C-alpha cells in the first residue's frame, strides 16, 4: 500500500474519532426535486451516523446554481473558512463556473480510497465533466448513459453498434427515430453518432469547437445520417419534439428500437404499463455516451474532513449498490465491476427487473464532448436537414 493512501486512511479514522467527540453534521446542498433522491440521502445520513457519527443534512435546492451564488457571495464577503456548504451535488455547467472562480477545494477526490474502484484510467469520464478536467475537485457519484431498448417478442437481435443500427433500419424501415436536436436526448444521439463515427478524430470533440474541426466531424456524421434518415419513422420527414414521445411510439410498436438516458426509467415504465412487458434494455458495443454527476467541496467548507468521509462513503460499493436499486433510485454506479470482489459484485445484482439493464452491461463509456459542441452540432443539423418547427 502506498504511503499516501495509508495516510489518508489514517486520516479518515482520525476524522471518525474526532467526530465521535462532537457529532458532526455535513451540510449537503443538492437538488431536492426527486423523492427517490431525497429518501436515498436520508438512508445515507443514517449509515454515516452509525459508522462515522456524521450526520448528513440534505439542504434541498430548487436550482443548484443558487448554491454557486451563495459560495460566490461568501467568497466576496471574505468568508474563507466558515462556509455554509460542506458538500455540493453538481454537474457540467455549474462545475465550470465554480472552477473558473476557484470556488472549489482541489486535489482531494482522487485521494479518496474508493475512487480507485472507478478505474479512472479506463474510464476517463471519471475525471472529466462536460469536457473540462475535474483536477480532483469533484468526486464522481453516479452516472447516466445512453441505453437502448427493444421488444424481445418482436426483435431477436438488436443492433449493437451504429453500423448495425443502419443495417437494422434497412431491414425494418420506419421502425427507428430520434428526437429533434433541440431535445436533450436528440442532441445526445448526435453526440453518440459523432463520437462513434469519428473514432480516429475523437480528441477533436474534447476541445472547444472550431470550424475545421466541425467540418471534419460532421463529414462522416452527415454521410451516415443521409443514409439513415429515409429509413427512419415517417421517412425522416417528421421528428418527435420530445424524448418522451419515443417511449410512446415504442409502446405502440410503431418503432422497434428506442433509447434513453435514464436506464432506470425503463423498468419503471413497464411497471406503469407504459412499456410492454417484453421490453429489454442494453448498451451499445461501440460505446455509450455517458455523463457523470459529481459531488464537490467548496473551498471554504468548515468540515472538509467529514465531507470527504461522506464522499468516500457515497463511493463505497454498498452505497453505490443501494443507490442503483430500481426501487431506491436506480442511478447507475460509477464503480467498475472488475475492481470489485465477487461478493461486492453480487450486491449490485439484487432485485433485478427483467426490463432493467444488466449490471456491467456497458462495454465502453464515451464521455460528453466539450460543452461547445452541442450548439455547433445542433445548428449544423438544422442547416442541413431544415428548420423543423
Amino acid at each position, binding site marked *: 500500500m502506498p504511503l499516501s493512501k495509508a495516510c489518508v486512511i489514517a486520516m479518515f479514522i482520525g476524522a471518525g474519532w474526532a467526530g465521535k467527540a462532537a457529532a458532526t453534521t455535513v451540510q449537503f446542498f443538492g437538488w431536492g426535486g426527486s423523492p427517490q433522491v431525497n429518501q436515498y440521502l436520508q438512508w445515507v445520513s443514517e449509515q454515516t451516523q452509525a459508522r462515522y457519527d456524521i450526520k448528513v443534512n440534505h439542504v434541498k435546492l430548487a436550482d443548484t446554481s443558487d448554491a454557486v451564488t451563495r459560495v460566490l457571495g461568501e467568497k466576496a464577503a471574505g468568508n474563507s473558512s466558515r462556509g455554509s456548504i460542506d458538500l455540493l451535488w453538481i454537474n457540467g455547467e455549474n462545475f465550470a463556473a465554480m472552477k473558473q472562480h476557484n470556488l472549489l477545494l482541489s486535489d482531494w477526490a482522487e485521494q479518496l480510497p474508493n475512487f480507485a474502484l472507478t478505474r479512472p484510467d479506463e474510464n476517463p469520464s471519471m475525471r472529466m465533466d462536460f469536457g473540462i478536467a475535474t483536477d480532483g475537485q469533484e468526486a464522481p457519484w453516479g452516472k447516466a448513459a445512453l441505453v437502448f431498448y427493444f421488444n424481445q417478442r*418482436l426483435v431477436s437481435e438488436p443492433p449493437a453498434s451504429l453500423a448495425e443500427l443502419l443495417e437494422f433500419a434497412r431491414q425494418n*424501415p*420506419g*421502425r427507428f427515430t430520434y428526437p429533434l436536436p433541440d431535445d436533450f436526448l436528440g442532441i445526445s444521439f448526435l453526440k453518440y453518432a459523432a463520437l462513434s463515427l469519428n473514432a480516429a478524430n475523437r480528441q477533436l470533440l474534447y476541445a472547444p469547437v472550431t470550424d475545421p474541426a466541425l467540418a471534419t466531424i460532421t463529414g462522416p456524421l452527415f454521410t451516415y445520417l443521409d443514409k439513415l434518415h429515409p429509413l427512419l*419513422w*415517417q421517412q425522416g*420527414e*417528421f*421528428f418527435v*419534439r*420530445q424524448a*418522451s*414521445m419515443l*417511449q*410512446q411510439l415504442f*409502446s*405502440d*410498436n*410503431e418503432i*422497434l428500437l428506442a433509447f434513453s438516458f435514464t436506464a432506470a426509467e425503463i423498468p419503471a*415504465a413497464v411497471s*406503469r*404499463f*407504459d412499456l*410492454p*412487458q417484453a421490453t429489454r434494455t442494453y448498451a451499445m458495443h461501440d460505446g455509450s455516451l455517458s455523463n457523470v454527476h459529481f459531488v464537490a467541496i467548496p473551498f471554504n467548507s468548515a468540515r472538509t474532513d467529514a465531507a470527504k468521509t461522506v464522499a468516500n462513503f457515497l463511493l463505497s460499493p454498498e452505497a453505490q449498490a443501494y443507490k442503483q436499486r430500481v426501487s431506491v433510485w436506480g442511478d447507475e454506479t460509477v464503480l467498475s465491476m472488475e475492481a470489485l470482489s465477487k461478493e461486492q459484485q453480487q450486491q449490485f445484482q439484487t432485485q433485478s427487473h427483467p426490463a432493467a439493464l444488466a449490471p456491467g452491461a456497458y462495454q465502453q463509456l464515451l464521455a460528453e464532448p466539450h460543452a461547445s459542441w452541442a450548439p455547433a452540432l445542433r445548428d449544423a443539423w438544422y442547416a442541413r436537414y*431544415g*428548420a*423543423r*418547427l
Partner: protein
Amino acid sequence: MGFSTVLTLARYLFYLILLVPIAVGVIGVILPAAGYFPALGQHGWSSEPFARLLAHPDISKMAGLSLFTSLLATLIAFIGTVAVLAQFYQCKALARIQHGLSPVLAIPHAAAAIAVAFLLAPSGWAARFTATFTHTVLPDAHSLMYDDYGLAIVLALAIKELPFMLLMALGVLSQPNVKQRLEGQMRVAQTLGYCHQTSFLKIVFAQLYPQVRLPVLAVLAYASASVEIPLILGPQNPPTLAVAIVQWFNHTDLSMRFQASAAAIVQMLVTLAAVVVWLLGEKIWQQGFRWQLVSGNRMWGKAGSTWLARLLLGCLVTATLLIMLSMISYSFAGFWPYPNLVPTQLTLLHWQDALQALGKPIGNTLMLGFVSTCIAVLLVLLFLESEQQSNRTGPSATLADKLLFIPLMVPGVAFLYGLVWVGQWLFAEAIWLPVILSHLVYVIPYVFLSLAVAYRQLDIRYVHVATSLGKSPRQVFFRLKLPMLFAPVMVALALGAAISFGQYLPTLLVSGGRLATVTTEAVAIASGASRRLTAVYALMQMLLPLLGFLLAWWLPTMLFNPAKQAKPSGSRNRTC
C-alpha cells in the same frame, strides 16, 4: 347610482373589454415587427424583421398550408351543415342531431386534436380493428397524421366546426318570426312539387346564409390561425404559419421575436386572404345558384344532399364513437399489445395518478371559468337590457353583433404576444387579472351569441304589463326578465365556462406558464410518454364542460317548470 347609469357603464365596459385588449395587442405586435423593441435594445425602426421573414425559404409554404387547411375544413363543415339541414329540416331527427352534437361543441380544440390523434395513430383503435382481419403483427409504418397537406388537420377542424355551424344555423332558424315565414314558404314550394331538399336549398338556404355568414367567416378565421390542432396533428417541415409563429416567439434566441412579430402581421393577412377567397367563392356560387333558382328543377340537389348528409353524419358519428371508446379504453388500460382490440388488463392507476396531479389545475380551471363567465354573462345581460331600453333594434344592434366577431376574426397568435408584452409592463406581478381579461375576450362573444337570441325574443308585452303595474325598469329586469330567462342564462353560463376551459394559448401566454389549467396540462402531457395518461387528461377536458352543460339543462327543470317543449311543425312532401 341608478340602474340606467349601471346600464350605460356596462355598455362602455362591454366594448372596452371586447376591443381594447385586441387593439393593444395588435399594436404590441406591430412595434416589434417594425423593429422597435426597447427590451432587446432596438429603439429604431427597420424593415429587417419583414425582410428576414420573407427570406425564409418556407414562408409561402407555411402560409399556403394555413390557407389550404382552413378553407378545405370550413368548406367540408359548411357543406355538411347545409346537407344535414336540407335532409333533416323540419324532422324530429334534427332535434336528436342537435342534442348529440352539442357536447362535441364543448370539447376544447386541444382535446379534439388529441382525440383525432388517437384515432389516426398507426396503432390506434381503427388500425387495431382492421388488423384483426389482416392479421398484421406491427402497426403500419406510415402514419395518417403529419401529412404534408395537413389532411389530418382538416379532419380535426371539420369535426370541431360542423357542430358549431349547425348550432348557429339552428339558432337562426328557430327564431319565431323567421321560423313561421320559412315554414309557410316551404309549404308553398312543396305544393308546387319541389321536393323537400330542393325547397330547402332554394328557399331556406338562400335566406339563411346571410345570417350565418359571420359565424362561418369566424370559423374560417379561427381555423386559419389555430395552433393546438396543427401542433398535434400537422406536419413540421414546414408547419402552418401559426405554429411557426408560436415556435419563433418561444425560441431561446430572443432576436427571433422580431421575425415572429412580422409573421404575426403576415398571419393577419393570411386570415384576411382566407376570408376574401371565401367571399369570392360565394360570388361565383351565387352566379350558378341564381340560375338554378329559376330553373324549375324540382329535384335539384336532392340526391347530393341526401348522400352527403348520410356520409358526413355517418363519418362524424363513427369517428366520435371510436374516439371516445379508444380514449376510455386507454385510460383504464394495463398492458395492451398492438393488434389486441381490448386491453389484456384493466387498472385505475392512470386515473389515480392524473387526479392527484390535476388537483391544482382543476381548481385553476374552475376558478378562471367561474370568474370570467360570471363577468361575461353579467355584462352581456346588462348590455342587452340597455339595448332593449333604448329600443335599439336598428343599426346599433347590428353594429354590436358585428363587433362581436372581431375577437373571433383577429388571430390569437397575432395579438396575444403583444398583449403579453403590454401586460407585463402594466401589471408586472399580476397573473389572474390579465388571464381573466384574455379569457373574457373570447368568452363574451360566445355568451352574447347564445343569450342575444333569447333576450331579443322575450315577449315585450310582459314588460309592458309590468311597467303599467308600476314596476321600475330595474325591478322588471331582476324580477321578470331574469327568472324568465333562467334557462338560457344557465346555458350561456355553461357555454362561457366551456369556452374558458378550452383556452390554451391565452392561458399559457398571458400567465407565462404560471397558471396551469387542465387544458395546458393536457397539451403538455399529450407530447409525453404515456398515452394512457394523455387519455385521462383529454377525458377530463371533455368531462368538465359536459358537467357544466348537464347542470345547465338540469337546474332549470329543478328550479322552474320546463318551458313548453318545441314540437316539430310542418310536414314533408311525402312524394319525394
